[in-house]
């Protein structure tokens, strides 16, 4: 069952070098945009589910971004936990590249913390 997607440009391809992760804002949402060494882009929510650290300010190693606060890691493509102490995955967003722009599907609802 397809719900309509809504891809929104968030950055230019050149804004993020391979191996880097940055914080981006899109429609009031704070997201972490990472680019793996092989050039692919991944986008996840910026807030670590363990203790609220800022993932986009962490380091990207392989496919996982590391939260600077306690070292928890999340897969930049799926949002799954790669290393503790977080146990709850973060929301991941479909990403595509079009005309040199990185676009994120914001039709995905983030899993909100109360």
């Amino acid at each position, binding site marked *: 069952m397809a719900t309509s997607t809504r891809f929104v440009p968030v950055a230019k391809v050149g804004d993020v070098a391979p191996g880097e992760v940055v914080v981006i804002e899109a429609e009031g949402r704070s997201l972490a945009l990472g680019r793996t060494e092989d050039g692919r882009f991944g986008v996840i929510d910026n807030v670590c589910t363990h203790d609220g650290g800022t993932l986009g300010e962490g380091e990207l190693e392989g496919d996982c971004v*590391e*939260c*600077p*606060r*306690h*070292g*928890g*890691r999340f897969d930049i493509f799926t949002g799954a936990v*790669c*290393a*503790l*102490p977080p*146990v*709850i995955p973060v929301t991941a967003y479909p990403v595509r590249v079009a005309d040199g722009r990185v676009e994120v599907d914001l039709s995905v609802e983030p899993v909100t913390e109360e």
Partner: protein
Amino acid sequence: MTTTVQPQLPDNYKWGWNDPEAEGKTFARTPKGLSEDVVRQISAFKSEPEWMTKLRLKAYRHFLQRSLPTWGADLSRIDFQDIYYYVLASDKKAQDWNDVPEYVKRTFDKLGIPEAEQKFLAGVGAQYDSEVVYHNIREDLAKKGVIFVDTDTALKEHEALFRKYFGTVIPANDNKLAALNTAVWSGGSFIWVPEGVKVDIPLQAYFRINSEKMGQFERTLIICEPGSQVHYVEGCTAPIYSTASLHSAVVEIIVKKGARCRYTTIQNWSHNVYNLVTKRAVAYEDAVMEWIDGNLGSEVTMKYPSVYLMGERAHGEILSVAFASDGQHLDAGGKIVHAAPNTTSLITSKSISKGNGRTSYRGLVKIYPGMRKSKSTVRCDALILDKTARSDTYPYMEIDEEDVTIGHEATVSKVGEEQLFYLMSRGLTEQEATAMIVNGFIEPIVKELPMDYAIELNRLIQLQMQGAIG
């Protein structure tokens, strides 16, 4: 630094002594204190791959940024620059009993492990001044494909496996001491049990600090593939000497689907050691993880073995015993995180404080939203033997799911007059009667220990009761 006055131990007390020949026989060590250079040296001594060196350095930088916890015991007397972080006792690893240096063999004699018994045991990695000098793997274990080596060897011989799991349960940034350990770790055990394999004999290791101002930073990593089973016993001991010493280990355990792991520790460091340990396990679907934690020694212990229940029907159990006498503060407990529905946990803590000793139970039960039908029970009992002793209980519960059953109970008591009177009227001295009551108090946990350890624990408690130690 203060000198701790230690009375004469009875001859039959085998766990603590100073080996005169061993003293000063350390062959190589890093300069005193901690710096980026020391970290690089340690990595170079071990000829490690670059990714490990980089990780150590990153961890060291993080260590500098973090501060020590403000809760728990008083850690203000630790001087991180007054410690030797790496000492190598022998310059090669012995594969054969004959190759082991004489004084190391004497150590094993004193530990009560005659040669024949050594050969029989499943496999023993003996930590001696930070480096494993003797190691042996029993043949049928090797045939089953079980890997049981010291952590340094694991990094060399099983690098991909090691790298896959190292730091995924306790990352370097987790806390200041985990950062320290990740920077300077050396030795410890690495165990990998293949799918479906059950190891029937407990795997054991002994530790010993035999150098003044020696810090112990072993790193243990245990991986249990689905359906496997293993019991690891860690028993440490330390000789008596007069300046503070730091033991800051990290233990990471992964228990996959349907597997079982039990990790038993009897800690009896001499009373000037700071024992600050981070121990954590993840348990997946239908897995069982059990921590059995006995804390008798050290001046200060801060240790909270944890289980993260990540798959349905996982079960975590923590059994903890602490006995604090004069000058000791044992701050221990456990932490269980329910991150899957239908998970269960049990924490049982028994603490005893005597003289002006202090025990604190510190624990956390956390239930994430959506983890329905989870059940957790915590039971903490404390026995205070003297008016001057102290006991605290700090149980934290964070329950964010409705459909669960969470219970916690604690009691604090002294030795009952009637009980004492009854036993004494049967001919026991007050001390004997009290020791008997104390043994009864901790019995639910002692009965889970391997026989040797149970006997040793009871004997150590007898000695503590007589005031022979501390």
